[in-house]
């Protein structure tokens, strides 16, 4: 386990993470899912996020699972996101399974846990479809339409704007630590462990300068937001409507709805 963690750690670079996240958000503008109106997708998500919890029939759940797996495929999700999804599902259920056996569970325990896993998987994939498939700005507009607070909707777009800056600052500070500090010898079992602790420690230490640097930046950002009328707009309903005017449902939305309904119909027919 520890060896695996260390290898992962070495391969994982901030550059890679940044690229994956941005690719996930903006790299798939040309997919079918991206063309669907965010409101349609959000309603669809509410449906698919809630529906599995209503059902206990494995076949039905499997049918839903296949459907959301296909939509996820359509969104061209970044590999990292898929990896995290699989990793999360496996560890969570695996852990529960092992512990329940420990407490005298038998094969019968496996069934309910598998079904629960399937449910979690369906809702997660539905969420990946919607939140990775939509570009953040459209997602923000969609949420805004449903009455989500402006500050949250703005924060989504802003988060993507500031992410590269944050990453760069953080990366450089981390490098300062790495280059000027002295990393412990990572040979052997104990060395690897020490090395891991060291890495976590310098990540934490890096937040001190990062907080100061970002504080300096956020002052300018907020002053600029004030000048550029951000708060003025938040207090004004007409402007919110102007922002939402770019949304519009079209044929893609209708097709998407029809396909979803037919698939569901099919699943229920089989059951």
């Amino acid at each position, binding site marked *: 386990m520890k060896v695996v963690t260390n290898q992962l750690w070495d391969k994982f670079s901030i550059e890679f993470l940044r*690229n994956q996240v*941005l*690719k996930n958000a*903006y*790299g798939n503008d040309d997919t079918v899912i991206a063309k669907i109106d965010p409101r349609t997708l959000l309603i669809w998500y509410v449906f698919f996020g809630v529906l599995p919890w209503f059902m206990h029939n494995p076949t039905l759940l499997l049918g839903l699972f296949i459907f959301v797996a296909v939509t996820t495929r359509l969104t061209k999700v970044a590999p990292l996101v898929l990896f995290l999804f699989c990793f999360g599902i496996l560890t969570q259920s695996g852990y529960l399974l092992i512990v329940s056996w420990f407490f005298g569970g038998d094969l019968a325990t496996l069934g309910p846990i598998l079904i629960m896993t399937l449910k979690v998987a369906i809702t997660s994939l539905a969420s990946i479809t919607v939140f990775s498939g939509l570009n*953040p*700005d459209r997602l923000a507009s969609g949420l805004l339409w449903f009455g989500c607070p402006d500050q949250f909707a703005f924060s989504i*777009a*802003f988060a*993507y*704007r500031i992410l*590269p*800056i944050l990453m760069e*600052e953080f990366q*450089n*500070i981390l*490098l*300062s*630590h*790495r*280059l*000027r*500090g*002295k*990393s412990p010898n990572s040979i052997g079992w104990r060395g690897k462990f020490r090395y891991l602790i060291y890495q976590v420690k310098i990540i934490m*230490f*890096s937040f*001190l*300068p990062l907080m*100061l*640097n970002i504080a*300096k*930046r*956020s002052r*300018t*950002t907020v*002053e*600029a*937001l*004030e*000048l*550029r*009328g*951000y708060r*003025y*707009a938040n207090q*004004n309903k*007409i*402007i919110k409507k*102007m*922002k939402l005017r770019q949304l519009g449902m079209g044929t893609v939305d209708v097709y998407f709805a029809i396909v979803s309904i037919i698939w569901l119909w099919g699943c229920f027919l089989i059951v």
Partner: protein
Amino acid sequence: MIKITDLHFTYPGAAIATLNGVDLEILQGEFIAIIGNNGSGKSTLCKTLNGLIPNFIVGEGSGSVTYNGEDLWKMPIGEIANCIGYVYQDFENQIVCPTVSEDAAFSCLNYGHEDYVKKGLDALVLCDLLDKKDDYIWQLSGGQLHLLALAGALALAPDVLILDEPIAQLDPAHATQMYETLKELNEVHGKTIIVIEHHSEYIAEYCHNAILLHEGRVLWKKDARSALRECQQLIDCHIFPPQITVAAQQIQQKSGWKQDQLLPTTIAEGKKFFEKMGILPDFKVRQEVMNSQLAIQLSNIDVQYRSVKGESKSLFTNFNLKIFAGDKIALIGSNGAGKTTLMKLLVGLLKPKSGTIMLNGTDVTALRAEQIAAHISLVYQNPEQMLIKESVRADIEFAMKERDIANYKQQAQALITLFQLDAIAESDGRLLSGGQMRRASLAIGIALEPPILLLDEPTANLDIATRQEIIRTLDLLKDTIETVVIATHDMQLVCEFANRIIVLADGEVIGDGPREVIFNNQAVRRQAGIEPPAIYQMAEQLGGSAYTIAEFVQAYQKELCV
């Protein structure tokens, strides 16, 4: 248009007033520069014009600011934004949307302009960014980002534009583009433009008038050319007049040679001035380049990088370079030419796809950055990222302490004294001035006494006086550190420091040699967008060559003494 009367302002908690009775009048259509040393209140003055003070920044203020007769401080912020646009010095933080077109239209949308999309696009046209409208912010270069910040302010079609150090982070070619854009806005579109500016060459070239601010007061407002002739007063306020003006003044003083003519501020004026003197100076300068032991050797390096959209781009293909011990190298070339990539390669932060890197005879291609950190050190462009401890002293001590150097305390103290950091050793670097911060980062960078030192843009974002200070500090290093590589746009620094210049363009070395070779090669200059310092251009116009003011003056002195 704008009238300021007896303006005072004190920040909350500050002991002394930042603005201390400013009286000023700015006319419609002016292109005006505000000059003054750090802490003279330039930025604060501008913030009283755009409504940030007193609407968002609380503090004690008195006096009046009127815009076309209306009290600016009583106007709603939305209305002020429609009249006065503002571009920050750290403009990067002013851009809040992920795509170009969105950010340009952001203000218009927020202030409820129905045609916000069109207004945003119009502003992009004015700033020559239309072809980038669908790009994401992180795809833009520094110069383009700055233009975008300008476009964001322009979209509301304000009559007045205020820019805080518009070219501080730009290379010379982009700096000229920025000022050309401003000039067009001023002349064609009738905008009143106010810039805070240290680069006196640009003030001479583009501005109509200049205001000198000192200790929160306006000392004078003059037309730009005569303002720059106030050599002594400017230097006292830590502002450097154009090189040509300084050279002319020094020659005049030293030779005791009286002239009825005014001091020149631009190359054109300089030509007349020096030609009138009737002496053709002897520009003879020699700089020895000696190739000694090989310090770094890069052979057949290939580097690729992945972009957000997926496809990988080649940065270096079959790249070769030799760096010798004792070299003082200036690495120049426009943004994106590969300077930073090369630096990262050298310190091991970036690994080549193929090829080898030899450092003092050992192959370091596969070694991790930490493993070679004691042999080669990099000082970042942004000094804040090198300040990782709570005080300057702790930062300087950090690397030595980690490596169990016994007398690290004394060594750190020696560095602190060498770099004149005593007064500020216990404070957090971020609150220091640009020059102090940069000196601190240099001290941190050489704490381990590496034989090779890399510096990324050591003089970026500094006013001229501070730049001189850094150049002097670098001279101190000449004896301590054997090999120095500086990536820079600052040609004055290049001329004063380097004995070897490497010109990069699109990941290739297109020029390599002493300054005489590089600056005389017109093809290389054009391709890499090199703008030699004004003093060199002046000498070139006069048919000779000189790289620094001292050399120029010396050349004349020799003649005059004869």
